């Protein structure tokens, strides 16, 4: 099939950038979106032009690297799917596809479609971990965990840190991501000893990075490739309120 691609090109962080239009005449409907981008880049290289820079790594929907906004939607039109898992059969012959980087001031564009998501890493470093050595897998029945909480923690742990929630949110809010990370530990006994400090530090870092606040529009949940529930944001609010009220340090 034929596609017209309208792609955001930007040389570097300080370049103003703008859209360029490209024509692809022979797109395989079985190709993934990233494979289609590879074909475009080969074509550009043959024409002695600079290929389009985009992030990708696993190409199997688990690393969260493939950040792209396709026709106004992070990771494209398909529910619960990363860009790398999106196939060209979901597009129509002759269609114009607009491809742009994630937009949020906490995710500055580095080049073309590549954005700097180290702000997420700094939030993680602020508390998204357990600070004891966990050793090898312990005997499963040593620490009882109820099934409902285990399932919720597992659902939250599916977050791949891709940033689509931020890209989807009109406020550039990272609350779904942070909510998932906080929930994943708050729901399990191993996460309990540090839960207060964790939520305080992670929210403080989130605010410092310049992410916006949640206004409960629900766009994040709708675009999340792992379908992380907004219930995690409410848990983040609860955790934060109770930590602020109970922690003794100022």
């Amino acid at each position, binding site marked *: 099939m034929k596609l017209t691609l*309208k792609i955001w090109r930007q040389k570097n962080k300080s370049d103003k950038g703008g*859209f360029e239009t490209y024509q692809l005449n022979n797109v395989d409907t079985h190709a993934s979106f990233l494979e289609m981008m590879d074909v475009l880049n080969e074509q550009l290289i043959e024409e002695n032009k600079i290929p389009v820079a985009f992030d990708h790594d696993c190409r199997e929907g688990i690393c969260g690297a493939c950040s792209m*906004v*396709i*026709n*106004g*939607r992070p990771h494209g*039109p398909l529910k619960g799917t990363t860009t790398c898992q999106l196939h060209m059969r979901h597009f129509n012959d002759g269609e114009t*596809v*607009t*491809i*742009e980087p994630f*937009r*949020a*001031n*906490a995710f500055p564009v580095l080049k073309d479609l590549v954005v700097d998501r180290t702000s997420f890493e700094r939030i993680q470093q602020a508390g998204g971990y357990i600070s004891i050595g966990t050793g090898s897998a312990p005997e499963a029945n040593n620490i009882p965990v109820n099934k409902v909480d285990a399932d919720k923690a597992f659902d939250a742990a599916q977050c791949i840190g891709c940033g689509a929630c931020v890209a*989807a*949110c*009109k*406020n*550039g*809010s990272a*609350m779904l991501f942070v909510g998932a990370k906080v929930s994943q530990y708050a729901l399990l006994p191993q996460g309990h000893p540090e839960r207060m400090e964790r939520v305080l530090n992670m*929210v*403080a870092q*989130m*605010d410092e990075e*310049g*992410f*916006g*606040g*949640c*206004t*409960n*529009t*629900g*766009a994040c949940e*709708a*675009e999340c490739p792992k379908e992380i529930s*907004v*219930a995690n*944001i*409410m*848990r*983040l*609010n*609860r*955790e*934060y*309120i109770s930590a*602020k009220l109970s922690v003794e*340090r*100022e």
Partner: protein
Amino acid sequence: MNWFLNFLNSTVGRKIVMSLTGLFLISFLLVHCSVNSLMFLNDDGLFFNEAAHFMASNILIRTIEIFLFLFLIIHILQSVAITRQNMKARTISYSGTSSTSTSKWYSRSMGILGSLILVFLVIHLKDFFIPSRFFDQLGFDSNGTPDMYSEVKEAFQNPAYAMIYVFSMIVLAYHLLHGFQSAFRSLGIYHKKYTPVIEFLGIAFSIIIPAVFAAMPIFFLLKK
């Protein structure tokens, strides 16, 4: 004290302030709407005037009224702070468009809806609140009570004026349609059992209260 200010200034804390003040305003709407509904009685407003006079002169009500204005001002100031912070967090919007929207338009337009409510409130307070609190601007009904009823009746018999009210109540309905349930979420209240109940009450409240308010100007227009 430092921790508390720090809390109120965080993205989570700001929404809590928004939520608590919003919920207070919601409780006020319920009282205000109930009292005003007395205007629908067929008694030339005698009972309504009595109730309005009570609301205007009772010391407890007047004290709560001070908090009402305080909370309204906080709600507005905080909404400016939140909206500005959120606009700063994303300054470029997308060029691509998709036919499916992932969020409701009114949930994305709370700042605009709120500002329209504010414009309405200025008109409303100037025309009704001030006369009702400074009785010398009012006449008296056959019971000798300050006659708020005639004041309202006269204003609403102007169709353009009545239409401003009806429009503003539609705006309020959308503000509440998002705001009511959002306020609970901002407080961290989200539960499989209770959230559907809150959402149902929110929709009912957002439709019924503005509809009853909007019925008042229409009622007087038809009575003319």
